């Protein structure tokens, strides 16, 4: 069913930002459905402005639509007002391109990026008229699948998905759609369980219903077991051995979005090995795009979109071995068009300041860097690899280059942290501020953003408890008291959303009932502080007879079976434990481009024949 224009027109006059719900943007692709054989709805469980900023979905949209027999269209979470209007008008959730109801698609593919979007997934399925529980879906319903970093521990969402895709989607999305198409055309087109078994044979595809979980009386996992010998014992994430070409015809949104610029991925993976960082562990190995490849992609994207800014995307931009050549090249080739460059995630050194200076055309807005921890001891624990000298020199270089505003990112509640580390954090902030006052003037401003550290799966800290809220409060108080000088502004993350994120990120399958109940009680858009209602989650936990402290406040044993143990990211549990022990002893593991620490990624993909020695950053 396609949603008629006049049905939509009636409700769009009454909602905020109707541009979120109409599509038609430049470079969006509208195919004739009579000429395609398999269809995929790419769903982002948050509003348009956020979902449209996601590069992963843009890559898949481009790849799938390059195939004549396939079509990919987009759908985002309707805001509260649109949800209410759609329910009142009995309008099902629809795709932006052709306004087909989501139930018309063969596959609905969500990206799970963030735990605080999980209730939106359920809400979107409900608005689409698709059964929430995978086991209740009938043969004609779309397959509901997910990819993205949340699928490295998808267990709290296992009941709602037919399958998860682990790792990078470029190859596997096409393999999946081809297999689904072949199945549709075969003799067992209506045998959904048969299809799922078939798809489970594709490397990187995890069908949760084919695994059983048993628990010990204390709530920990006794066993995770494939239901029979046909089902793979363990999974390994998929990777693109070399970076595929960057998409150069991205959709140009008509309304403003979060990252409203061209984006070119210059590097995947990061070799720094920060121990708190999930991205640094799960996106291994490190692969660079060549300078020439980046520059050609930038030229094409600018010509195809008319953007005046390009973001060079990576986990650590200044680590690209040809970053200077790239930045200079863009300014030379595109400066005439007034194209600006943005470089997120700069590492902390004066080279980064020079780099940032070269892309600042005239005005110096804020210079941002992330010491993460205040004391040298704690920075060594997390393997940040940055000394206080590095920090002060970076700040000094930034002030000397003309920046008045510096933004610092820290974490609170890191493993082994004591009050002393917070006093050190405050001292560092004061020193940076007075450095600014000395080198610049009274306008100098230091803003400090302090996030509560949440231990994540597949990191060396995956066994550790989340910090206690009373300690968080006490340390926030210390920090505020110790930084009452001049223009220093301190802000932090909200505890209420932190504990939900912490609970879900390392949760098990039993939490599915809690997510579902919280949604039924009205939970939506948890990532938006104005929408977040922790009381709904407390009630949902009570009704499900579960206690969040089991998930967030408990030190896990070294040999405990973790819900995500069978879902391989290429980095071994032994390596993570070794790094954890190094952390506790405050020992550094330097950049692994110079010295291999045996994380396991090479061994994992050697077997799969996927290692590309001269491209990967591994020594």
């Amino acid at each position, binding site marked *: 069913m396609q949603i008629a*224009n006049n049905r939509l*027109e*009636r409700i*769009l*006059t009454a909602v905020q930002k*109707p*541009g979120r*719900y*109409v*599509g*038609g*943007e*430049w470079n969006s692709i509208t195919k004739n459905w009579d000429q395609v054989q398999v269809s995929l709805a790419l769903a982002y469980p948050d509003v348009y402005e956020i979902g449209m900023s996601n590069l992963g979905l843009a890559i898949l949209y481009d790849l799938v639509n390059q195939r004549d027999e396939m079509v990919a269209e987009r759908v985002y979470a309707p805001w509260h007002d649109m949800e209410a209007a759609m329910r009142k008008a009995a309008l099902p959730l629809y795709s932006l391109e052709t306004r087909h109801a989501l139930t018309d698609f063969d596959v609905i593919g969500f990206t799970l990026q963030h735990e605080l979007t999980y209730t939106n997934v359920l809400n979107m399925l409900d608005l689409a008229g698709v059964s929430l529980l995978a086991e209740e879906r009938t043969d004609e319903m779309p397959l509901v699948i997910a990819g993205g970093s949340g699928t490295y521990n998808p267990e709290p969402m296992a009941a709602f998905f037919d399958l998860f895709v682990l790792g990078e989607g470029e190859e596997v999305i096409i393999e999946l759609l081809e297999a689904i198409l072949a199945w549709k055309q075969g003799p067992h087109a209506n045998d959904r369980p048969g299809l799922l078994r078939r798809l489970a044979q594709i490397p990187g595809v995890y069908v949760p219903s084919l695994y059983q979980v048993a628990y010990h009386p204390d709530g920990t996992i006794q066993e995770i077991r494939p239901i029979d010998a046909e089902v793979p014992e363990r999974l390994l994430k998929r990777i693109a051995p070399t970076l595929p070409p960057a998409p150069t015809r991205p959709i*140009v949104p*008509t*309304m*403003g979005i979060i990252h*409203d610029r061209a984006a070119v991925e210059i590097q995947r993976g990061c070799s720094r090995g920060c121990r708190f960082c999930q991205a640094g562990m799960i996106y291994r190995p490190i692969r660079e795009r060549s300078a020439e490849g980046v520059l050609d992609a930038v030229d094409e994207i*600018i*010509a*195809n*979109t*008319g*953007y*005046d800014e390009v973001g060079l995307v990576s986990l650590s931009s200044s680590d690209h071995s040809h970053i200077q050549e790239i930045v200079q090249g863009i300014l030379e080739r595109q*400066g*005439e*068009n*007034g194209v600006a460059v943005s470089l997120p995630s700069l590492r902390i050194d004066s080279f980064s300041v020079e780099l940032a200076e070269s892309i600042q055309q*005239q*005005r110096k807005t804020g210079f941002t860097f992330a010491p993460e921890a205040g004391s040298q001891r704690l920075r060594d624990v997390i393997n940040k690899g940055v000394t206080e000298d590095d920090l002060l020199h970076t700040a000094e270089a930034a002030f000397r280059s003309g920046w008045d505003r510096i933004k610092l990112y820290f974490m609170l509640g890191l493993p082994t942290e004591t009050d002393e580390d917070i006093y050190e954090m405050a001292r560092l902030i004061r020193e940076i501020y007075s450095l600014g006052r000395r080198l610049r003037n009274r306008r100098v401003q230091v803003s400090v953003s302090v996030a509560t550290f949440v231990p994540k799966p597949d990191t060396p800290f995956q066994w550790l408890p989340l910090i206690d809220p009373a300690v968080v409060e006490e340390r926030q108080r210390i920090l505020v008291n110790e930084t009452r000088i001049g223009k220093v502004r301190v802000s932090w993350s909200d505890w209420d959303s932190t504990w939900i994120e912490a609970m879900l990120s390392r949760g098990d399958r039993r939490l599915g009932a809690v997510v579902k109940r919280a949604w039924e009680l009205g939970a939506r858009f948890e990532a938006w502080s104005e929408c977040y209602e922790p009381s709904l989650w407390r009630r949902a936990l009570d009704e499900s007879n579960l206690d969040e402290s089991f998930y967030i406040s408990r030190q896990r044993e070294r040999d405990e079976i973790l819900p995500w143990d069978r879902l391989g990211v290429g980095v071994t549990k032994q390596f993570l434990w070794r790094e954890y022990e190094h952390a506790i002893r405050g020992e550094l593991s330097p950049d692994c481009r110079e010295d291999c620490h045996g994380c396991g990624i090479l061994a994992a993909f050697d077997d799969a024949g996927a290692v590309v020695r001269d491209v990967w950053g591994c020594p």
Partner: protein
Amino acid sequence: MTRGEAVQRLRVGYRISNPLQYVSVLDMGRLWERLLRRAQVPMAYTQGYHPHPRLQFAAPLPVGYLSSAEWLDVYLREAVDPDEILPRMRAQCPRGLEIKSAQTVSLNAPVLQAQMREAEYTVQVWSEAEPTEMQGALEALMEQEQILRTRVRKGRQQEYDLRSRIHALAYIGGQPDSDDGVWEHELHLRMRSGSQGSGRPEELLQELELPIDHYRICRTRLIWE
């Protein structure tokens, strides 16, 4: 970046249809900027810290309105032949935007927005009211000397007289809609528009005190001095 003075001013006429009627004024500016850059139109930029292309819309189009009569002035840093540039711009139009014309106007001519006086609209209204009832309500409205309303502007309540902003109104007629018991009516309106305050067709509809299912507004003409 080459900035330099503007050497030419191009006046572009265009239409807005679905889905671009849902675009805000700010977003429309950005949409044109990107379109012109893709078409390699040599725009002139403002001076200052954040140079941006010099684009001037005659009158902002409210979100939700269609239009067959929009005007935009584009200042150029290099002279172009409008006939040569028109097809290039048309090739870059997203769905919902149709460029009607492009011609050179004097660089010294006044800014359109400052000269705006009136705008004309075609309004379709879906309502249970029958044509005689609709016509009666419209006539009664026009007979009033004043229609005082308040708007919130920059957080402050402001009173204004809607009646004085309605310069002409014609009821064209009504016909039964496919929905049972609903009529589709059409009216033409000329209302004040410009820096002295604008009247909006939907405000007039709100004053009718008739059950209104939904409506569609299309701006059909801009009138300036």
